[in-house]
Structures are given as C-alpha cells and as structure tokens.
C-alpha cells in the first residue's frame, strides 16, 4: 500500500496554473498578431540582456560559479530526503512549524486553515511562483480571504485583471503608458494627474500599499533558498514589499517547492552571486532577507513553512528531465529566447513560461497535458548558455518531444528540423523560404522542406515577418 502511495505523481488537474486553455501554437498565433506586445517584449528583453551581460562580464569566475551552482543542485537532488528532514529539524528547533503538502490541493488547504486560525480576512503576499502554480489566491478567495499582491508587477497584473507573463517581471508585456492607464482605472485613490514617469508610477504603488502593509497581520511568501544545515530561508527582492511582508505581520506562511534547498549556509555564496546578475542584471538586488525560524521580539512570531511536492517528485523520477528542478527562477532563459520574445509568456499557458516552462510544466503535469510545449523552441541553445546553473534545456526538450503523444512521423520530422537548426545555412534558407511562403499568402499551409512534415501535422502560426535568425543578427 505504502509503495503505491509513495510513487511519484504529477500535479493534479483542476487546480492551479500549470495548464493552458489552448495549445502553444494556437495561443502564440494570437500573441504574434499583437505588435505592441512584441515591441514591449523586445524593448524589455533587450534592456535586460545588456544589463546582465555587463555585470556578468565583471566577474572573472562566472563559469566557475556556474559549475559550482550546477553541482550543488545535482548534489541536493541526490540527497533530497536527508536534506529535507534536516531542514525540518532546524526550522522546528528555531520555533517554526513545518508542513508537508503532497499536491496543490493539500497546500491550499493548509494555508487556508492557517490563515483562518488567525482570524484575519486578508493576507499580504510577496511574489511567489509556487503560490501561483497552486492557485492559492483563488483558494483563499473561495474561503472569503482577500490576498493582496504587493510586488509592483503583480499589482499591475492584479489591477489590470491580467495574467503574469514572465517569472521575474510578470507585467513585462506592459509599457509605462499602459501601466499608467491601469493605475488610473483601477487603483483606488490614485492621483488623477499621474504621469507615466516610472518613479511616479512606483510612488503611486508605495502610497497605495502602505496602509495595507501596516494593518495586515498575516503574510504569505515563497522562498528563493532554504538552507538545510541551518534552517535559514532567503527571499531575494527589489522593492521592499518583501521586507514588509516578512517583517511586519504577526504570522508568516512560506510556501516552497521541495527543490529549493541548498545544503549548507556556505553554499549560499554561490547562488547569491549567480541569481542577481543573471536575473535583473544587477550586481546585487536591492534587498535580500534571511530568517531562521522565529526571532523573539523581531518580525513575525508565528512562522509556518509549507513544503510542496505537486509533481516535483515526478520530475525527479526522470533521469534526463530532473535537471529542470535545478532552476533558480532567474528568467535569463526567457530573456534570451527568440521564441519567448515573439510570443510572450501567456502563450505558454502555465505560470512557468519560456524555455524553463517548456521543460518544467510538461514534466509537472505529465507530458500529455502540455504536449505542445516541448515544441515551443527552435533549439537554438541560447537558454543553455544563459542559464546560471547550466541546465541543458535543449536536450530536455528533445527528450520530452520523444515522450509527447504525437504521430511518430512528427518525431522523425523534428529530428530533421533539429538537424536543420543546428546547421545555420540550411536553417536560414528554410526560414527564408517560410517567410516567402508567408508573403505568398500560404498562411498556415506549411513550412518548406525539410520542416514541412512537422507543420503538416501541426497548425503552425504564420511565420513572423522577421525570422528568429534575422532578428538575432539585427538585434
């Protein structure tokens, strides 16, 4: 019996945000038609690539840090049971309470019960991928509890009745004038003279959330890192909304995927160098908070840590795919991805978009539930080069394509496509031909050989005016 219960399972259906309503090609077609979206994305990703490249170049040992980060994550996965138990022991000894959630439903129930027990009708939230993944906000709302997102981008998304489109900058698809319009329309008490100057927009968010921070007694956060040998948790942020949530309330509930572990305190020296430079392109992000259990007289006096599986053990069971659990959510792979830059995050249907989403979401849900995502890539390899923990995303994509329930011919055609894309001259001419076919009005009818077998079985979006490679050259 216990063998059965103990087998890795995928994230359950009907809860959370790991599955889209439509396949990637269908969703991407909509996005490709939105030229404002494309301009916003291009502007933002170009900016971040430049910043990140400059601060990475300042470190003479970037490659050594990547290798250490990669090895640390592999070693963490290999020792996961022992390290998780160590973490639980340390957090408990420091006055925290540890909960284990096998899936999204159980995690939502645990958090809802904990909030209910405090009597609070409202929680403040720090941006957290794990709580988006499990649909915690919806679960809290169903229980009559109001979740308030406090991260500026999350606030833009929440006020705009929108969905996040990037793991680090969820409102990356919005430019400053769109943000101004959303604030004017939906932010209570906003100054009608609001301009679209970014500091002015940031100031409006500051005023709007102040009172909420001061009066809410429960916060929910995620965690960037949890250190097994000390029980310390770390949240990396910019705005100070994280510090507010981690410091002001009486009760703090942190929801964390079981893969976020780091073995020792010392190991943090690697990730604290990799993450900010790869993600926001800063030498260091403005604020990082670290806490161990409860500190009497300082910060929340009740601390709960919820350890979440929700399909992660199924990812771990795949010897090739398990590397996806090494991800530190820096978003560098999104920012360099020519496919992401054109389609944006919404097309991926999951809270995890871009190259990491294309390998993580199908593994969390089972490939059958996200069958088109492993194809949402040109296998150009830019993500692998950008990844600070050296996750070999292209290899995992190919591996997952072999598992996706598609006609056998498609696998063969994809192999040909992969070959073509590995050979720039062939790829260039195939893509140019595709562009010509677009001009010729053969929209949706297919790609030229050798890519045509694939597009015959998949309704491809119209090829964009500029190919990925044209773009890459001109960027």
């Amino acid at each position, binding site marked *: 019996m*216990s063998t059965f219960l103990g087998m890795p399972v995928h994230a359950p259906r009907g809860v959370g945000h790991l599955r889209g309503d439509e396949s990637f090609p269908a969703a991407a077609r909509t996005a490709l038609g939105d030229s404002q979206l494309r301009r916003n994305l291009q502007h933002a990703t170009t900016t971040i690539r430049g910043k990140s490249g400059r601060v990475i170049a300042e470190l003479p040992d970037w490659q050594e840090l990547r290798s250490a980060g990669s090895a640390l994550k592999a070693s963490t996965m290999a020792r996961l049971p022992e390290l998780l138990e160590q973490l639980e022991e340390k957090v408990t000894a420091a006055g925290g309470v540890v909960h284990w959630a096998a899936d999204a439903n159980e995690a939502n129930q645990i958090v809802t019960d904990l909030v209910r027990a405090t009597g609070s009708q409202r929680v403040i939230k720090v941006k957290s991928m794990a709580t988006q993944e499990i649909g915690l906000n919806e679960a809290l709302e169903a229980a009559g509890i109001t979740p308030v997102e406090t991260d*500026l981008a999350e606030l833009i998304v929440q006020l705009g009745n929108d969905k996040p489109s990037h793991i680090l900058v969820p409102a990356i698809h919005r430019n400053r004038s769109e943000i101004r319009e959303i604030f004017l329309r939906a932010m209570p008490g906003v100054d009608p003279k609001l301009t679209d100057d970014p500091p002015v927009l940031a100031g409006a968010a500051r005023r709007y959330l102040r009172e909420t921070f001061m009066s809410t007694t429960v916060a929910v956060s995620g965690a960037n890192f949890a250190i097994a040998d000390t029980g310390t948790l770390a949240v990396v942020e910019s705005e100070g909304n994280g510090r507010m949530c981690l410091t002001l309330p009486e009760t703090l509930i942190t929801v964390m995927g079981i893969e976020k572990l780091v073995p020792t305190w010392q190991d943090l020296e*690697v990730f604290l160098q990799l993450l900010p430079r790869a993600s926001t392109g800063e030498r260091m992000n403005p604020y990082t908070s*670290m*806490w161990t259990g409860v500190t009497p007289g300082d910060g929340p006096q009740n601390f709960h840590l919820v350890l979440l599986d929700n399909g992660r053990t199924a990812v771990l069971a795949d010897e090739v795919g398990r590397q996806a659990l090494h991800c530190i959510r820096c978003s560098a792979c999104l920012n360099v991805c020519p496919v992401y830059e054109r389609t944006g995050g919404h097309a991926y249907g999951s809270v995890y978009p871009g190259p990491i989403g294309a390998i993580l979401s199908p593994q969390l849900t089972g490939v059958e539930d996200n069958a088109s995502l492993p194809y949402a890539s040109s296998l150009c390899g830019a993500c692998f080069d950008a990844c600070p923990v050296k996750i070999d995303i292209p290899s995992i994509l190919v591996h997952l394509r072999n598992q996706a329930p598609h006609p056998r011919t498609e696998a063969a055609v994809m192999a040909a496509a992969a070959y073509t894309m590995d050979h720039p001259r062939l790829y260039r001419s195939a893509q140019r031909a595709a562009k010509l076919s677009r001009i010729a009005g053969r929209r949706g009818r297919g790609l030229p050989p050798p890519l045509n077998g694939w597009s015959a079985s998949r309704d491809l979006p119209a090829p964009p005016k500029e190919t990925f490679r044209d773009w890459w050259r001109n960027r």
Partner: protein
Amino acid sequence: MSSKNIILDRIRAALASGAESPEIPRDYRRGPAEVDLDLLVERLVDYKAVVHRLNPEKSGIEPVIGGGVEGSGPQAGVADARPLDGVEAEGAAGGGSGGERAASAGAAAVRAAIADILGAGTVVVPPGLPLEWLPDGVVGLVDDGLSAERIAAADGVVTAAAVAVVETGTIVLDASPDQGRRIISLLPDLHICVLRADQVVASVPEAVARLDPTRPLTWISGPSATSDIELNRVEGVHGPRNLHVILTG
C-alpha cells in the same frame, strides 16, 4: 500515511534508479582579497546610495553624492532641538561593542555627517547605537518596542552595520543591538547607515563566512528599487527611498 512520508517515499522511489552526488568544484574566488574602499564607494553610488566618507587623515567629510530620490530627506531648518529625549548622551542604552566605539574619536565626525544629512528632525535609533552620533537638533527615538506607526512617522533611522561587500555595493544588517529590529530600518524614508572600514570585505563569499545565519539578516544594495517597469531600475518603492552611508575609519 502522513504527507511527509508520502513525499519522502516518492523522492526515494524517484531516486531509486540512481542519482549522482557530485563533488562541488569550489574553484571560484573565495578570498580573502584586498578591500578597495574606493570601489565600495563607487558601487554604492552606482546604486544611488549617498556616501559620506570620513577620512581620518584629512579630518574632514567628503560627501560623495549619489542619487536620493526625493532630495536627501528632510532639509535643515529650525526644528525643535530637544536633546535626545531624555536619554543620557554618553551611554548607549544597550549593547557592548557599540559603547566602546562611541568613545572613539570618530564620533564627532559621524555627528557632523548626520547633521549634514538631516539638519534637524527625529530619527529612530536601535538601543545599542551610540547616542553621541546624533548632532544637536536631531532627536533620537530609542526603539524599545516602538509601534510601527511611530517608526513610520520618524524622519529617518540611524543604524550601524554588520558587514559590507565591495564587489556588489552591499551592506548587511544582522539585528545586533546597534542595528536593531528589522522594522526600524524599513519604515522610515531615510536610512543612515554607519559603516566601519573594518567591516568591509571584498566579496560575497567573505561576507557569508562572517555572518551568523541564525540572526535575521537584511542585505541592502541601494535604496528600494524596482525593475518592473520596462526592466529599468527605478529607485523608490516601499523601503527607504534615501540611503546614506557614513563610512568611518
């Protein structure tokens, strides 16, 4: 069967086919490396902190102006200059090492620097901060469990620091008596942080090695900022919008 056991069993089943635990290659730079204070100042200023460098040899203050979002906090003016809210000037209210430091000749220079930054007003101070650091005209509100409202209403906060990192322009607070509860350096709009040169290390690994993870730690690199609008760094969201660093010794 508890969820804990279910999850641990699942992990063991997932790893049953074998998983390698590789050696960790630690050939990145781990220090100790030479501390370049000029570079620290440059990095702090680059992320819009204002640095006041107290140069013991020149016996003067060199303010290095970075940014500051809305001016540099409340400007000098004729304000109520009550001396330190009835707290004895010579004694830090708690904490040992802070008291010794207060005796150092640097106190006068720190006082002058704070007078430059704030002129007059009310600042929250942690219980272990040397009150000699506060100039006439600046009222120290010692945190003995102040309410969030009182902290937020202050013109600023003055703290010491635990460690600083040259390479990243980062200051770390560890909630020692001269740094105080996390809340006090968060709510006021102006944070004045007094940093000693011997607290500065070259790199992140050296800082991690110096810190005690069981204390609440706050790593600060510039004033509150966001990259959420078109991915450019914009200073001034929820944390203090003005960060002044007084570098002594």
